[in-house]
């Protein structure tokens, strides 16, 4: 059997532990002789077993067992609060914490706000200090998900690659192109850029969905990356447009690369879209041209080959 990744294994442990806790609770109620309250924990234990199996099984969306687990926690705590003679106020914190752990941040926040206002309305504990402690707990529990969101945003802002394929995204691409432009001027070298356009991309998305599009992009990037030098820069300039920056390359060299790429790409056949089709053209900086002007010219060239 394939070894599962660590988060998944931890989740499995959590699901089974919660099921065993529920079974233990049920047995304790049985030993205490409170048969009338036995029914709900029995039902919840079955529910948790179902969610554990759904988590282990394939083909279920991962949010469904999470929601089942969360719902059973809510039901267990609510029934215990109403049926036990002297419930500890402590237990009302459990659903709040579980919500933040099991749901995405925004839905967890709104669910907790709804629950808090509902509790205020019909709570058995009505002192302000108590509700204040709930608000404080909710806000404290919301902090780590915010921190996660910050880190995710930071990674996105500092990751140079495009999210769909193994090429630089537009900001990094322009920056690297600017670097190469400056370098060529400073060190007196040549520079060439190939503009690539994938005419099948939009059609692939419309007809076969996102997966076909990703396959197309992946095929292009792997072909280009495997056939280029280490310091050539491939970046995604538009939805279906790529720029391949070739430092220290003359016009004839760029034309040669173009021929080679064209041949290699046309040999690549994909399941859904068939033969990989690409339009490629070269665009070299002119003498004494500014960088902005050159980028404009590159964009115009991309537009031109897209509308052939």
């Amino acid at each position, binding site marked *: 059997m394939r070894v599962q*990744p660590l*988060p*998944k294994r*931890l*989740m499995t442990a*959590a699901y089974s*532990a919660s099921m065993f*806790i529920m079974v233990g609770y049920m047995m*304790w109620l049985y030993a205490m002789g409170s048969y009338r309250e036995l029914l709900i924990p029995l039902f919840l234990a079955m529910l948790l077993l179902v969610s554990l199996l759904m988590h282990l099984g394939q083909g279920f969306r991962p949010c469904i067992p999470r929601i089942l687990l969360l719902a059973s926690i809510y039901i267990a705590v609510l029934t215990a609060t109403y049926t036990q003679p002297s419930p*500890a*106020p*402590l*237990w009302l*914190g*459990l659903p*709040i*914490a*579980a919500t*933040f*752990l*099991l749901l995405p941040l925004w839905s967890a926040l709104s669910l907790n706000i709804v629950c808090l206002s509902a509790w205020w309305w019909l709570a058995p504990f009505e002192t302000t*200090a108590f509700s*204040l*402690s*709930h*608000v*404080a*707990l909710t*806000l*404290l*529990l*919301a*902090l780590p998900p*915010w*921190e*996660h*969101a*910050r*880190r*995710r*945003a*930071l*990674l996105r*802002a*500092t*990751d*140079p*690659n495009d999210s769909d394929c193994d090429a630089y995204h537009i900001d990094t691409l322009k*920056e690297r192109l*600017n*670097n*190469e432009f*400056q*370098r060529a001027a*400073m*060190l*007196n070298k040549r520079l060439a850029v190939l503009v690539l356009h994938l005419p099948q991309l939009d059609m692939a998305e419309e007809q076969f969905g996102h997966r076909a599009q990703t396959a197309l992009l992946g095929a292009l990037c792997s072909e280009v990356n495997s056939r280029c030098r*280490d310091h050539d820069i491939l970046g995604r300039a538009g939805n279906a447009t790529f720029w391949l920056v070739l*430092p*220290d390359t003359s016009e004839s060299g760029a034309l040669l690369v173009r021929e080679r790429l064209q041949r290699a790409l046309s040999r690549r056949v994909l399941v859904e879209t068939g033969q990989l089709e690409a339009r490629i053209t070269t665009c070299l900086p002119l003498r004494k041209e500014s960088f902005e002007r050159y980028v404009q010219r590159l964009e115009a060239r991309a537009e031109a080959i897209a509308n052939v």
Partner: protein
Amino acid sequence: MQSKYKISLLRASLLAAAVALALWTPMAPPAAALLLWLSVGWLFITALVLDFSHRRSPGLPWQMLAGTLLLGLIAAAPERHALLIWAWGAVFMLPQHRWAAIFNACAAMLSCLLLAPVVSLPEWLLMVLSLATLSVLALSRTHQLINMNGDIRQRLRLVPGANLWAGEQLLRDLLREQTRSEREAIHAEVLVIQVKRHQLWPVAQQLCELTYKFENVYRLNGTTLATLILSRTSKEAAKRRELLCAVLPDSAAIYHQPLMEIELASLSIEALSRYPKHRLSEAA
């Protein structure tokens, strides 16, 4: 901008939590009030020093501080702050070092023991088990985040928009630049600069401004920076190096070596960052 928006929401949320804790202080026993105010202060300071870069993320074990404060809050008034036991779930949701996690786990156990007199035994057992399950859930969520980071972290820039990169990137760039400078017949050299810890970020910024855009700056560790200098001839490189050295602080130890002479196969970031020290001891 999307990213700025994220950080201001986090800051607002930290401040809101601080305000909620501050409102909770009246009628608290003195020890509990003191700890509440300490926590308020910590949340407040965290909100103030928050920034949108990778500068602070590794190193400082501030997660242990959060755990200590939480343990203190529960210990100061077990009955009053019993609800906060569930906040351990939040502590375990923070990405942290292994030993910080172990410390926090011990602190969580201790606070459970402190709560034992407040609730009945079966309830206490149930609470400990539920808390353990919650912590496992939280760990699973943290690991998802860490897995996602792992491969991106190696290729990233440290501050959005600045030309400052992680040390791992230097090893890759050295390899590439070595073949490239040979093919283009230019002179390339690597400059390793060691500064005092508190000077690192100002010097890094200075270096970014003084070098060309195509010569990246790298942070090797807490005190060491590196940059690549590309010039047409070695004479021009020497002139540029002198200009750079004149601007850097006097206490900085600087080491340079042409790229061609570096043996890349056995090179590591640690070895590179030790270069300036070696040279100083040779000179002495």
